[in-house]
């Protein structure tokens, strides 16, 4: 079976394993960041457990192409320990470089950046959401 040049190994691994997919434990207060629109081909929900001003746990749900799923999975690890300011300033280009995302998919990564920044706006003390 020939490899598909559209996807890096890391994108394929994360897409198949989908680590970080799902919800935070039931009853756990969460900061949510949601962005995108299924009509446009990508929709992402990020859920962060926050303690002492830092992300302690993260989960994602997503509808989209393998690149969107893979970056969402990666974000659940990348943003552990992040502060609100880190979420506010997170830039999609980091994921593009780390996961070797093709230029044709850069627009999709903006949806993920929007979800991260939406979570920053919902940060405790700003505006709180719960699952």
């Amino acid at each position, binding site marked *: 079976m020939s490899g598909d040049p559209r996807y890096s190994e890391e994108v394929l691994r994360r897409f198949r394993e*989908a680590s970080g997919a799902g919800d935070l434990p039931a009853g756990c207060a969460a900061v949510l960041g949601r962005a995108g629109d299924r009509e446009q081909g990508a929709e992402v929900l990020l859920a962060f457990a926050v303690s002492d001003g830092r992300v302690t746990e993260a989960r994602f749900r997503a509808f989209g192409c*393998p690149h969107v799923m893979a970056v969402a999975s990666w974000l659940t690890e990348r943003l552990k320990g992040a502060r609100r300011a880190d979420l506010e300033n997170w830039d999609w280009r980091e994921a593009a470089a780390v996961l070797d995302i093709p230029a044709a998919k850069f627009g999709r990564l903006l949806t993920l950046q929007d979800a991260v920044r939406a979570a920053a706006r919902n940060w405790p003390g700003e505006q709180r959401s719960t699952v």
Partner: protein
Amino acid sequence: MSNVIYLDNAATTAVDPRVMETMLECLSATGDYANPSATNHAPGRRARARVEQARTEVAALVGAAPEQVVWTSGATEADNLAILGAARFNRTRGRHLVTSRMEHPAVLDACRQLEREGFEVTYLKPGPGGIVEPSQVEQALRRDTLLVSLMHVNNEIGVAQDLGAVGRLCGERGVLFHVDAAQGAGKLAIDVVRDGIDLLSLTAHKLHGPKGVGALCIRREPRLGLVPLQFGGGQERGLRSGTLPTHQVAGMGAAYRIAADEMASDAERIRGLRELLWNSLRALPGVELNGDPERRVAGILSVSIDGVEGESLLCALPDLAVSSGSACASMTAEPSYVLRALGRSDRLAQSSLRLSLGRFSTRAEIETAAARIRHEVLRLRAIGLEASVAGGRL
């Protein structure tokens, strides 16, 4: 390829071993490899006989006379020769063409070229089932309409048009009728005389023949004029210059002869496999059939699977060779224009999957494919936002 279940026969098919055998007879040093135009010597005459036999075989499948068949490099060239050639030849008679929004790009892009040359084109919107009603064609016809172009079977959804009714309309009004039968020939009955078709585009590789060869079947009585697209040695009565590829042409002839012999039995078996696949997939909630459920070719099943993005589904199924209407999968800016022409939302168009079966598809392959698709759909839906909304947890 051996580990992959091939369900992309609408894109292209495996060459039938019997076709390969015929082609090989035209390639080797002891075979009929000579230039079929070199009829001054025996090898050339043998090659010419191969070409003419193939012409007879192709013509027979579509109810035409052999002299109506002009060889091309495929259906794309045949579409271009038919549409551009007929419009340019008849430009003093009229400047209007009619086609539909769900035609193959070979037709749509040829029409757009004619628009740049000053012609007007009416693009009919099919109904939700993908059918272009003859009454729509009738209403679109004008006094200056030169040509109507409709595909026999749509390549994405497999729906078949009522060619005979449109052919009669065109014939009564002296309007040329072109049909792109790349997907339908050899799978559903088509007859240029019965269906009133003036120009018929054909290809070999959708019918277990080789890639790189096709034909345009052109009405002879009354004679129909075309401006050629290419010039050179004057082959094919000056309509398509270039040395004929004897092995390709002979392969197309063999593929069409086999299809004529086996069309009914192939269609019945493939339809049964398609229904097996559809019944397995439709058991999942949120799975919809694209296109009219009755008026369709046996081998194409197009489904929209709500809650799953098409490219992700393809990526999750590396053991299946299928295609998607997703914009991401095709790296284009828009989801499938065919599904959108049917009125499908972008959301459902993004979530579409085309599974196309062929002569070599087996029941075991279909059962495996159905199980794999069901498994991955459920897995991807469990990751989606709606699972969360519904209270689902991984």
